[in-house]
């Protein structure tokens, strides 16, 4: 198992290099002159300024040299400068990342609770009306276009019945809490401001619920099927023979074994989460890196999308690695390639 993990760890830098190379190639193939984005229009006539900018960005160099500059910039954490905000992309992303993480964590918690709960009940009352409804609810969750369900729920719950506030992380003109973790809910609690906490939580609730529902679909399906498999195993029969009530067989025996596949879907749902987060942020005007990428895509701000792509890929690779390690650790029966 250690050899397997070591092999995965060694592969990561190469995969990251591959990701960076693809991003570089994409940025080089972009239509439109990168100079136009870097030099204000009225300075275009000035050959000295144009030459200076070209030299600064290495635009006068051949492709392999530009690639070298790009990679060495990346290694120093320099993702380029956004055409739209005129600030370093790395700074923009660092500023917006906590908002995305807060949304994703909240959605993950909601999705896991919903998914495991529905999966448990669905396996316990297999074949009943409830089972059918739970499966349909899960299936719809993972099939809904999230940018549409978000919109409709926002209309129903915020416009028709004022149950949740509108978009954004806080009401307009409300000062965010002093920055500690970047999570408004946590920071508000740390500052002891319960009123602010309630407001931040209310704003977080709907986008996290929409995203959590999407994620819960996958989890429900998996928990249900592995519980049903567990309930038909010998150990479940033995437990029943010893007189254990069905509830105990389900929780103490079947669920414990279902936790292994549950670990793997943490990595599996991550792709859902990223996709969902990008679109949810766009609908809820959530100031995270997803809406940053969407705005970048709409204005063809390549450095912005490229930066989010690289950061997202790093997170994706790490999530997959952690999943593999967790899986190998939790299930000693599985010898993953030595």
């Amino acid at each position, binding site marked *: 198992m250690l050899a397997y993990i070591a092999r995965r760890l060694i*592969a990561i830098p190469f*995969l*990251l290099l*591959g*990701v960076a*190379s*693809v*991003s570089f190639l*994409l*940025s080089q*193939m*972009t*239509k439109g002159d990168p100079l136009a984005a870097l030099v204000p229009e009225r300075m275009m006539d000035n050959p000295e300024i144009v030459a200076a900018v070209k030299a600064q960005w290495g635009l006068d160099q051949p492709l392999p040299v530009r690639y070298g500059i790009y990679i060495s910039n990346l290694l120093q954490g320099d993702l380029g400068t956004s055409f739209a905000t005129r600030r370093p992309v790395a700074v923009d992303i660092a500023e917006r990342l906590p908002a995305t993480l807060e949304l994703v964590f909240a959605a993950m918690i909601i999705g896991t609770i919903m998914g495991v709960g529905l999966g448990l009940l669905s396996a316990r009352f297999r074949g009943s009306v409830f089972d059918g409804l739970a499966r349909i609810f899960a*299936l*719809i969750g993972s*099939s*809904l*276009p999230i*940018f*549409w*369900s978000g*919109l*409709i729920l*926002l*209309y129903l719950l915020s*416009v028709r019945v004022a149950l949740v506030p509108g978009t954004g992380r806080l009401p307009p003109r409300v000062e965010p809490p002093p920055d500690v973790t970047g999570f408004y809910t946590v920071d508000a609690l740390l500052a002891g401001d319960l009123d602010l906490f309630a407001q931040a939580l209310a704003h977080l609730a709907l986008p996290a619920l929409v995203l959590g529902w999407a994620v819960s679909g996958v989890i429900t399906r998996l928990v249900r099927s592995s519980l049903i498999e567990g309930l038909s195993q010998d150990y479940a029969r033995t437990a029943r023979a010893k007189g254990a009530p069905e509830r105990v067989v389900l929780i103490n025996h079947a669920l414990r074994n279902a936790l292994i596949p549950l670990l793997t879907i943490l990595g599996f749902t*991550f*792709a859902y989460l*990223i*996709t969902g987060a*990008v*679109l949810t942020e*766009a*609908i809820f005007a959530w100031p995270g890196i997803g809406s940053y*990428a*969407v705005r*970048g*895509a*709409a204005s*063809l701000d*390549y450095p912005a*999308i*490229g930066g*989010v*792509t690289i950061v*997202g*890929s790093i*997170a*994706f*690779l790490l999530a997959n690695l952690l999943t593999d390690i967790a899986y190998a650790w939790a299930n000693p029966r599985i010898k993953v390639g030595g």
Partner: protein
Amino acid sequence: MTAAPDAAPGAVLPAPRRRPLVGLARAWRRLPPTAKVGAAILLFWVVVVLTIQLWPLADPLKMVGRRLQEPSAEFWLGTDALGRDVFARTLHGAVWSIPIAFVVVACAVAIGSALGAVAGFFGGWWDSIIMRLVDVTVSFPPILLAMAVAAMLGPGLLNASIAMIIVWWPIYARLMRAQVLEVREREHVEAAVAGGAPSGRILVVHVLPLCWTPTLINATMDFGQVVLLAASLSFIGLGATPPSPEWGSMISEGATRFYNWWIAFGPGMAILSVVLASSFLGDGLRDLFDRRSA
């Protein structure tokens, strides 16, 4: 040596005659009801695409009534900000989404399967190069890769389709490679090798025909996901561009007119129906043909 000396190299026993239509009818009867519903929904959308000119619908690009009317007997899904009939636009949206998803899945299957088959069958350097390419491609979160490619190529449905093919081919490369690796070791392949058949022929005649089941099941399930991603890209502004009645861009128009919920309602339901239908049908096919992975 008892074998006839004039036997052609690589010759095999004649296969039992197939009767595809009978097999198809039998398979249909064994499909679970949900899969039949899925097939019916997909068929409905295909028929809509093929016969859209014959429907008594309003022109999806013309103003046909007052702006922003609620759903009524005249306009079943209301009118949008330019007074266009949302119901007509929703049905016309299928003409964009369904063929695009079909082309994207077909291209991804063709490219991915070809590369996966070569990687699995020939192994060695081919395998290393192709599978490293797959590894790098799947290191990107799908939507971000699609956004980056689509933004690089510029907005438009063709470019969005290329972006989606780039996102999807690795799945089929992995599937096909795994299948080929398994089938390659079977005895009939060994027999063909012993008979002296050239390796290209062995791959095409003896290996590939046995490898399609997982690919076809996966392609059925992915069809809805492609519709969903295409709509997502259009929603972001990287796919179809405004006047065209594409589902994603209709929802993005609806998103700017928050109180007029009906603008986005139809296209959202349409997307949901396709995604659900294709996962119903894909699930059913998997239960029927590929019990192992069910």
